[in-house]
C-alpha cells in the first residue's frame, strides 16, 4: 500500500502535465459516452492521449502495481485507465499528503482491526471509538455550511420532488421513478471491512468541506453489506475523485451497479429486523453461543442491546481470576448455565457490589464488571452478535427464564412470533388477532400477501375481509380440535387439543394419551392420526435394542434426537433417554421362553402377568430377551403400553395356533384345547435340576444348544429309540447322550431326541396349582387329561373328578414323596406325550402299570426304565422311595398310589421286554390324537359356572366347542360349551359306549364288557370283535 502510494507520487510527477491536459477532454468525452460503463474506459480515452508511447511506458512501469490490484480488473486496459483517473484526481498535493499520512495510520489500524475481526462486539466498539472523530466536526461547524448544503440539496432535488409528489402516485408513476439510463449511476466501492459507515460519513464530510467540487450525488453504507459502500454519481471519474484520499477506500475497485439492480440495493431494509424489548434472541458467538437470551434494552443508535442470559460462569475460576491467581485456561470447557447465586459468590470471596445502573435506574449486583439481577446475567452486546430471526425457544428454555416467580410469560411468548418464518399462514387457517385494536378478533385466513394477511372476521358486522399484519396474528385452536404438530420437538405427533394457553396448546397425543405442549404456530389442524416420528436411523418405535452398556430395552418413544427406552428391568419400570449412538444394535431374534407353567411363550402370544408391579395386566408379547418379556397392552397408559416382566411371572393366555403347533400339540386345532400346562405332572423332576429355561426341543431353534446340555432327553428314533439319557454335549446336529440305562455315551441325531426336561423345584409349590386354575387356559387342559388320567388315576378314581386339576393336586400331593420313582419311569413329562403323538411310541412305559395282563408283552421299554432306577442320576428319590415297582418288590400294592397300578404292577412286566405291546398300542394311540375328542351322542358332564350337569353332545362346532343338550337323555335345553367345560362320562361295565379315538375304530359303538384297570374290554358292535381299549377313549353313549 505504502509502496503504491510512493509509486503514485513519482508517477504523478511524471504524468501530471499530461493528465491535466487530458482532463477536460476526457471528461467531456465520458459525458458523451455516458452509460457505456467502465469497460469502455480504454477505448474512450485512447484518442485523448497525445502520446501513446508514454502511456505504454507508463503501463510498463505500473505492472508491479497492477499485480497488487484486485482480480476485478477485466483487463490491463481497464485497470490502467482507472489508475490514470485516480492519478489525475489525486493531482492536489494537499490531498496526496493527507492520503499518505492517512494510509500509514490506516495500516496500523488495519492490523488492530484484523486482530479483532472475530468479534464484531469489539469491532463495534472500535467503530464507536473511531466515529466521533469523524462525526463531530460537522456538528461543530458553523451553520452556514449546513444551510448552504440544504439549499444546494433543495436545488438539486427540489424540482423533481415537487413535480413528482404533487399528485397522487400511481403505479405508472412509481415505475417512472425507477432509475433509467439518464439517471446517475450507482457505483460499488470497496472499502475496509467494518468501515462502511465511517467511509460514507467521511464522504459526507468531504462533501461538506469541498462543496460542489465533489460531483457525487450520494454515498450509501449498508449494514448488511460488508467491505463495500455505494456511491451515486454520474461518472466513475467522479467517484474516484470523491474517494481519493479516503483512507478506508481502496480506490482501485469501483464497479458499476447495473440499472436493474439499483433498486435492490436500497430495498433491503425489510431484512433488517427491529429488535424490541422482550424479544427472544440467540447468541452467535462466545461462551454463550447458541444460548437463548431475552432482550431487555435496545440502543438503536449504537446498535447494541442489553440481553438477559442465564450465566455460564465458573465461580471458582472467577474467584481465582479476581484474586489475581493463575487461571488455567481450559479451552474446551464451557461452564453449564446456572443462575448466579450471590451468596455463593461471596463465600468464595468474590466482591459483589450492589449498585444502581446508571441508565436504567435498576439495581444490579456487579461482579467484576458483570451485572447480575435475579440470578440472570445482563450483558450488553452488539446487535450483530445476535440471531434474532426465527428463534424457537424450547419449553425448557422458556421455563428457566420464567424462574423467579414471573407469572405467565405471555408477553414474551407473543414476541416469539415477531420474527417467525414467512409463509406460515395458509388459506383457511383459523386465526386470532393478538395485537392492536382488533385484539382477540377471530377469523379465517382468506389471502396471504407479503406481510399482510387478509382475514375474514368472525363478527358479522365487520367488513368482509380485513388486512392484518402477519405479526399481529396467531393461529387459533379450540379445545377438541384434532391437530398435528408440524415443527418443533414434537414434530409429527397428532392429538386433540385439550387446552389453549395463549400461544401454547396442550394436546393429548393420540398414541400415548399423554399431554404434549406445542406452540400454536407449530401446529396445523389435521384429521390424521400418527405417532409422530417413529424412526431414527435403523431404529423404530417398539424395537428391542441393545444399549451401550449391554442392557437392553424397547423403544417406547422417539424424540427429535433421542429415544426413550424402557429398560429390560423387571422389578420396576425404568425409562432412559438414549441417543442414537448409544444404541448398539437392534435385537430381532425370535426366541421362545417358558412361562411360569412351562408353556412356551413366543412373540405375539398373549400373556397374563401374575407377579410384579404389573400384576394383573394382560397383553401380547412383543419382544423376548434373556428371559424377559416386553408385553404390550394397548390400554396400559404408561410407557407407551409396554410392560417389562420376567417370563417366569407370566402365564400364556389362549395362545396362538402357531405356538401350539410348536409344542407339537395336535389339539391346537381347537383353540380351546391349547397345550395344557403340565403342572401336576412334573413335580418330581426337580431333582434332576434341569434349568428351567431349557425348553422343549422345539423351543430351541436358533438359540444355541447350550440349554440342551445336561438336559434329560429321550431318544425317539433310531437304534436307541426309547432310551433316555442326559445330554453331555451338543455337536452340530448331533448330541451325545449318556444313556441312563446302559451307562454309556452314544451319539444321536438331534432330531431324534425329545427332551422332557426337569422342572425347577419352585414349581412344586402347591399354590401354583391354585394360580393355574385361575387362568383361563387352565380348563383347557381338561380334554387332555383323559389321556393321562386314566393311566394313573382312573383306576382309583373312576369318577372323573380326578381329571380336574385341583383334584389332581390333592390326589397327587400325598403321593408326591413316594411317587417320584414312578414318575420317572413313566415318561418324565407325560404332558409331552399327551401332546405329541410322536412321543407315544416311546411312552408306553406308563402302560405297564395299567396293563391288566402282565404278560401281555407291554414292558418292552419299561424294561429299560426299570433298570434306569439304578442309575445314580436318578437322584436320591429313588433310593428313598420304596418303589413298589421294582421287580424286587412286587408285592406292595398297598402304596398309596398303587391303586392304579394294582393290576399290573407287581406283574412280571419288567422281565418281559417284548415289544409287541408297543406295536399294538401305537396305532390306537396315534389315532387318538387325530380327531376331535368328543363326538356327538355321547354322554358328558358339563362343568359350568360351578355347577355340574349331565348332557349329550349334539354337535361338535368347528371352533372346538360343543353343542350340548342337557339331561341324560339329551332332552333338556341346548347349550354350547367349550371343550374344557365338558368331559365324557366314563362308561361302566356293560354300558353302551362310543369309541372316541383309536383310528379306524373311531366313531364305532360297542359295549363295554369289562374294565381292567385303565383299559376297557370292548365288544365292537359292527364287527363283534373284542378289543382292549384305553378307557380314556371310551365314552358312554347317550340312551336315545
Amino acid at each position, binding site marked *: 500500500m505504502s509502496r503504491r502510494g510512493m509509486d503514485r507520487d513519482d508517477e504523478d510527477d511524471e504524468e501530471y502535465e499530461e493528465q491535466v491536459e487530458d482532463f477536460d477532454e476526457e471528461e467531456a468525452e465520458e459525458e458523451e459516452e455516458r452509460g457505456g460503463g467502465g469497460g469502455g474506459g480504454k477505448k474512450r480515452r485512447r484518442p485523448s492521449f497525445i502520446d501513446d508511447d508514454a502511456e505504454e511506458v507508463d503501463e510498463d512501469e505500473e505492472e508491479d502495481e497492477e499485480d497488487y490490484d484486485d482480480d476485478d480488473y477485466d483487463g490491463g486496459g481497464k485497470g490502467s485507465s482507472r489508475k490514470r483517473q485516480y492519478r489525475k484526481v489525486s493531482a492536489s498535493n494537499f490531498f496526496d499528503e493527507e492520503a499518505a499520512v492517512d494510509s500509514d495510520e490506516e495500516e496500523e489500524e488495519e492490523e488492530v482491526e484484523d486482530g479483532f475481526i472475530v468479534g464484531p462486539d469489539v469491532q463495534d466498539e472500535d467503530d464507536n471509538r473511531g466515529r466521533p472523530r469523524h462525526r463531530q466536526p460537522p456538528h461543530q461547524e458553523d451553520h452556514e455550511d449546513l444551510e448552504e448544503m440544504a439549499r444546494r440539496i433543495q436545488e438539486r432535488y427540489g424540482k423533481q420532488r415537487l413535480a413528482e409528489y404533487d399528485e397522487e402516485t400511481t403505479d405508472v408513476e412509481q415505475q417512472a421513478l425507477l432509475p433509467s439510463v439518464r439517471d446517475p449511476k450507482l457505483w460499488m466501492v470497496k472499502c475496509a471491512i467494518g468501515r462502511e459507515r465511517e467511509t460514507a460519513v467521511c464522504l459526507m464530510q468531504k462533501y461538506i468541506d469541498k462543496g460542489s467540487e465533489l460531483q457525487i450525488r450520494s454515498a450509501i453504507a449498508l449494514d448488511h453489506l460488508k467491505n463495500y459502500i455505494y456511491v451515486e454519481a454520474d461518472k466513475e471519474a467522479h467517484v474516484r475523485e470523491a474517494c481519493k484520499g479516503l483512507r478506508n477506500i481502496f480506490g482501485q475497485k469501483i464497479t458499476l451497479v447495473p440499472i436493474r439492480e439499483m433498486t435492490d440495493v436500497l430495498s433491503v431494509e425489510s431484512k433488517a429486523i427491529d429488535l424490541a424489548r422482550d424479544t427472544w434472541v440467540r447468541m452467535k458467538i462466545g461462551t454463550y453461543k447458541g444460548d437463548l437470551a431475552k432482550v431487555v434494552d435496545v440502543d438503536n443508535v449504537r446498535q447494541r442491546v442489553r440481553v438477559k442470559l442465564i450465566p455460564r460462569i465458573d465461580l471458582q475460576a472467577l474467584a481465582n481470576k479476581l484474586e489475581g491467581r493463575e487461571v488455567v485456561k481450559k479451552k474446551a470447557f464451557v461452564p453449564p448455565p446456572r443462575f448466579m447465586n450471590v451468596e455463593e459468590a461471596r463465600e468464595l470471596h468474590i466482591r459483589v457490589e450492589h449498585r444502581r445502573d446508571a441508565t436504567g435506574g435498576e439495581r444490579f449486583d456487579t461482579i467484576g464488571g458483570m451485572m447480575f439481577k435475579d440470578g440472570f446475567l445482563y450483558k450488553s452486546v452488539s446487535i450483530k452478535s445476535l440471531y434474532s430471526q426465527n428463534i424457537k425457544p424450547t419449553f425448557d428454555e422458556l421455563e428457566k427464564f420464567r424462574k423467579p416467580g414471573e407469572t405467565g410469560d405471555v408477553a414474551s411468548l407473543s414476541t416469539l412470533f415477531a420474527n417467525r418464518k414467512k409463509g406460515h399462514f395458509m388459506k383457511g387457517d383459523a386465526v386470532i388477532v393478538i395485537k392492536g385494536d382488533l385484539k382477540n378478533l377471530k377469523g379465517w385466513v382468506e389471502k396471504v400477501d407479503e406481510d399482510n394477511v387478509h382475514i375474514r372476521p368472525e363478527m358479522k358486522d365487520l367488513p368482509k375481509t380485513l388486512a392484518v399484519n402477519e405479526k399481529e396474528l396467531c393461529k387459533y385452536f379450540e*379445545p377438541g380440535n384434532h391437530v398435528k404438530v408440524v415443527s418443533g420437538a414434537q414434530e409429527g405427533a397428532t392429538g*386433540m387439543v*385439550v*387446552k389453549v394457553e395463549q400461544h401454547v396448546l396442550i394436546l*393429548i397425543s393420540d398414541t400415548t*394419551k399423554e399431554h404434549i405442549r406445542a406452540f400454536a404456530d407449530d401446529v396445523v389442524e389435521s384429521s390424521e392420526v400418527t405417532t409422530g416420528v417413529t424412526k431414527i436411523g435403523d431404529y423404530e418405535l417398539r424395537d428391542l435394542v441393545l444399549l451401550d452398556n449391554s442392557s437392553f430395552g424397547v423403544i417406547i418413544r422417539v424424540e427429535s434426537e433421542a429415544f426413550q427406552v424402557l429398560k429390560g428391568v423387571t422389578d420396576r419400570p425404568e425409562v432412559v433417554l438414549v441417543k442414537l449412538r448409544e444404541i448398539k444394535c437392534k435385537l430381532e431374534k425370535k426366541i421362545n421362553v417358558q412361562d411360569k407353567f412351562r408353556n412356551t411363550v413366543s412373540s405375539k402370544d398373549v400373556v397374563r402377568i401374575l407377579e410384579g408391579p404389573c400384576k394383573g395386566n394382560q397383553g401380547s408379547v412383543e419382544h423376548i430377551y434373556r428371559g424377559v418379556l416386553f408385553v404390550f397392552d394397548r390400554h396400559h*397408559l404408561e410407557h407407551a403400553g409396554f410392560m417389562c416382566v420376567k417370563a417366569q411371572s407370566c402365564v400364556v393366555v389362549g395362545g396362538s395356533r402357531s405356538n401350539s403347533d410348536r409344542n407339537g400339540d395336535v389339539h391346537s386345532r381347537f383353540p380351546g384345547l391349547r397345550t395344557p400346562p403340565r403342572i401336576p405332572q412334573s413335580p418330581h423332576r426337580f431333582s434332576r435340576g434341569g434349568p428351567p429355561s431349557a425348553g422343549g426341543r422345539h423351543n430351541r431353534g436358533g438359540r444355541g444348544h447350550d440349554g440342551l446340555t445336561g438336559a434329560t432327553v429321550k431318544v425317539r428314533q433310531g437304534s436307541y429309540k426309547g432310551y433316555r439319557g442326559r445330554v453331555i454335549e451338543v455337536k452340530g446336529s448331533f448330541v451325545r447322550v449318556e444313556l441312563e440305562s446302559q451307562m454309556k455315551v452314544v451319539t444321536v441325531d438331534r432330531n431324534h431326541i425329545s427332551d422332557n426336561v426337569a422342572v425347577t423345584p419352585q414349581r412344586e409349590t402347591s399354590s401354583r396349582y391354585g394360580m393355574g386354575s385361575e387362568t383361563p387356559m387352565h380348563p383347557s387342559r381338561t380334554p387332555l387329561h383323559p389321556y393321562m388320567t386314566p393311566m394313573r388315576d382312573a383306576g382309583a378314581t373312576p369318577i372323573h373328578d380326578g381329571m380336574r386339576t385341583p383334584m389332581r393336586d390333592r390326589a397327587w400331593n400325598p403321593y408326591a414323596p413316594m411317587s417320584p420313582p414312578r414318575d420317572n419311569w413313566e415318561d418324565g413329562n407325560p404332558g409331552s406325550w399327551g401332546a405329541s403323538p410322536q412321543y407315544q411310541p416311546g411312552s408306553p412305559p406308563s402302560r405297564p402299570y395299567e396293563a391288566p395282563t402282565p404278560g401281555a408283552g407291554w414292558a418292552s421299554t419299561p424294561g429299560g426304565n426299570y433298570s434306569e432306577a439304578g442309575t445314580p442320576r436318578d437322584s436320591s428319590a429313588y433310593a428313598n422311595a420304596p418303589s413298589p415297582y421294582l421287580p424286587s418288590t412286587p408285592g406292595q400294592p398297598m402304596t398309596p398310589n398303587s391303586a392304579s397300578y394294582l393290576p399290573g404292577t407287581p406283574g412280571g412286566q419288567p422281565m418281559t421286554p417284548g415289544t409287541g405291546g408297543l406295536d399294538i398300542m401305537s396305532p390306537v394311540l396315534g389315532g387318538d390324537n387325530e380327531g376331535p375328542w368328543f363326538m356327538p351322542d355321547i354322554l358328558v358332564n358339563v362343568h359350568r359356572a360351578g355347577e355340574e350337569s349331565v348332557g349329550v353332545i349334539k354337535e361338535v362346532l368347528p371352533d372346538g366347542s360343543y353343542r350340548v343338550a342337557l339331561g341324560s337323555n339329551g332332552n333338556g335345553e341346548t347349550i354350547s360349551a367349550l371343550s374344557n367345560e365338558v368331559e365324557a362320562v366314563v362308561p361302566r361295565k356293560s354300558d353302551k359306549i362310543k369309541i372316541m379315538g383309536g383310528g379306524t375304530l373311531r366313531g364305532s359303538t360297542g359295549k363295554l364288557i369289562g374294565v381292567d384297570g385303565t383299559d376297557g374290554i370292548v365288544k365292537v358292535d359292527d364287527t363283534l370283535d373284542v378289543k382292549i381299549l384305553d378307557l380314556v377313549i371310551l365314552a358312554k353313549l347317550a340312551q336315545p
Partner: protein
Amino acid sequence: MFFHIVLERNMQLHPRYFGRNLRDNLVSKLMKDVEGTCSGRHGFVVAVTGIENIGKGIIRDGTGFVTFPVKYQCVVFRPFKGEILEAVVTMVNKMGFFAEAGPVQIFVSNHLIPDDMEFQTGDMPNYTTSDGSVKIQKDSEVRLKIIGTRVDATEIFCIGTIKDDFLGVINDPATV
C-alpha cells in the same frame, strides 16, 4: 346421541344355511356381524331393531356363497362435540381420567377438570376438591361435555370436560 336409522349391508351367507331358516340365519348373522361395530359416520351400532328389506341374493362363483343386500333398522350411538353425556369413570391418573359411556371412551384431561380439584395418588387415585366434598375416582359417575371426537375404524375416542356449569360427579359409589 342415539339414532334409529336404516342401514344397508351386503351379507354373505354360506350355502349350508340355505333352507327354510335362511332368513332367520341371515338376520342372526347380521346381528352378529353388525352389533357392536363402529363406523365414523354413524357411530356404534347398538342394536338391530328390524329388517326393512332383503334383496335378491347373488351366488358367488367359486365359493357358493350368496350375497344378500339387507336393509335393516338399527339404533346407533354417536357422540357429538358439545354433547352432554353421563359416563362411568374407568381410570384415573395424573393426566386426567378416562370414562366410558357405553362403548365410547372419553378422556377428561386434568386441564379440563375444575382447577379446585387436585389429583391424589394412592391406592385409589382420584381427583378431590380441597374440602374433600367431591371426589372423582374409579366407578364414579360423571356428567361431562364432549369437546372433541376422534373416530377410528373400530372405536370412537372423545375428549370431554367437566369444567362447566352443571358438570361433574353425579353419583359417587363411595358415598352411597
